[in-house]
């Protein structure tokens, strides 16, 4: 992450909050005029523009506030899976984490028969 990114992230979050507030456009409530392009009453034109701006803000959110850290925890699971794969005889071990059952131990099962405890990691 580049050093300016956390600041940008905060700005993008503020932008999102501002956008939510701007949805309540009480100032257009009773107006028809101006008719944008001769066919769109101002109240509708505002919300069309709002949708376009929302897409831009979402782009900014994806660009500068993407939760990329979520991948690192998953990568660690997959790396350990591939390490086991290269150490074992089975050419294509499949990682299939058991989660069924009421009180079953949650473990990683590999098709070469070994089991591994799930590593800790963040979901938030």
């Amino acid at each position, binding site marked *: 992450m580049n050093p300016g990114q956390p600041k940008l992230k905060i700005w993008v979050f503020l932008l999102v909050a501002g956008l939510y507030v701007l949805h309540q456009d009480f100032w257009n409530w009773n107006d028809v005029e101006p008719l944008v392009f001769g066919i769109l009453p101002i109240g509708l034109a505002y919300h069309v523009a709002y949708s*376009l701006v929302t897409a831009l803000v979402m782009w900014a959110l*994806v660009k500068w506030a993407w939760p990329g850290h*979520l991948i690192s925890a998953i990568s660690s699971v997959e790396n350990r899976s591939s390490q086991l794969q290269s150490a074992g005889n089975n050419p294509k071990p499949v990682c*299939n984490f058991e989660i069924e059952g009421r009180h079953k131990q949650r473990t990683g099962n590999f098709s070469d028969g070994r089991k591994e405890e799930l590593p800790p990691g963040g979901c938030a």
Partner: protein
Amino acid sequence: MTPLIVVCVYLGVVAVIGAAAYRRGLGNTEDFFLASRGLGSVVFFLSLFATNMTAFSILGSSGQAYHHGIGVYGLMASSSGLVIPLSIFFLGTRLWAVGRRFGFQTPVQFYRARWECDHIGTVIFAITVILLVPYMIISIMGGGRVLHDISGGILPYAIGCALVALVVTVNVFFGGLRGAVWVNIFQTILFLLFGTIALAIISQSVQGGLSEQIQRIAQNPETKPLLTRENLSQRIFWSYSLIPLSSIMFPHMAIMCFAAKTIDAFKKTVVLYPLAIMAVWLPCVYLGVIGTQTEPGLKNSDGVLLQMLSHYAPAWIAGILGAGIISAVLGSDTHQVLAASTLFTKDLFNHYGGHEKFGESKSVLFARVFILVVTCVAYLVALITPMRIFELAVRFAFSGFAALSPVLVAALFWRRSTKYGALAVALWVGISLAGLYFLQKYSDSIAPMPGQPPVPIFPALGSFLERSASQITFYGFLPVVPMLAGSAVLMTVVSLLTKQPSKATIEKFFSK
């Protein structure tokens, strides 16, 4: 007759695509329910959008605009265009991550592991299913009604419902999620184009073009309010901005989040979602308003677009556009049926020993049998029950799912949250909805006519509880406002008062 033939050909194609997906199946639940978590970004976007769009987006939006005017777009579309992508960004990506790490296929599996709870997970499961099932049934009803209308009344409603139920069953029974998403690609493109094509054709054909029609509406004092929001309360308008929080809580949407191949698959969806909603809703709302001039005095305003198409579009184009509407019906209904099957298979059958006893392939068989049974039951219920009952239930479902959202937020973000907090929210939502139903029925006799101001339900309480033409309000706000506020408070207070999960569990989900 031509539109009906085009739509029937389309339904046949949908069924064949679903059956073709059967050949690619791997015979395990992860493949059947989640297409082996392999959806790329474009497919994920098209499929997630199809999952969330129903016939209401096309027919209901134009019907609402026919009565309430352009305000419907801001009320439901532009707010959804903001809140839904945000919920996908903040909650959907994290659901995907826990699903990928721990193998969860349903949100209830996550709650059970996150809060070390068993029966409380079952309570949340029960509330979820109760809120989902009416939505599933009304989709079949909507499909039957659309086919009946498109055929000009030739195709009976019961046969229309049966056709929709059959195509959905074939699609999901054989193809699982893979069958559904293959069809979704085709469906979403159809209904994304629907509005623009319909608007282009109708604008060429109406007298004087769109500009003259709008001027005519603006100059008539009776119709002018359709171009403003003067008949819409600002409190109601704001309340509606909370409803889209329900989207990610609908199980068919949450389960879709588990099916993405990578986290990057969410990026296109987050950015394109507002534009896609605009592409569907703007032409429909606009045409609904224009329809007040070209099709005056309609009793069933939801049929305004179909009426306009039958008057202004060539029969074969009306057929293709009709297929676009049916796409919206099928796209969401297939995912609802599959989600119901996923919940019953994973959260009940497998959780209470079915998987250990019968194994993986029998779980898939259970899921398929469940799909057959649930669509048959939904079809029969659709035939014998009045639609208005389910319309009410679906309206409640949106408020209910929105009020459940603090559960997911707390599970993903708040270490200190507890299973008792989640239980309190689930009970609060159940009790609130039961109370709302009672108030709705109690106040039916005093409900004002559409367009008239709301009346107090209990005069001694003043404006605390009021009844408008169709709904209950609290100080002028929709029920979703106190329900959501109550859920957030209960989740916080009850969690702080009760014992949190073990340190090991918290570390498992939160340590970096």
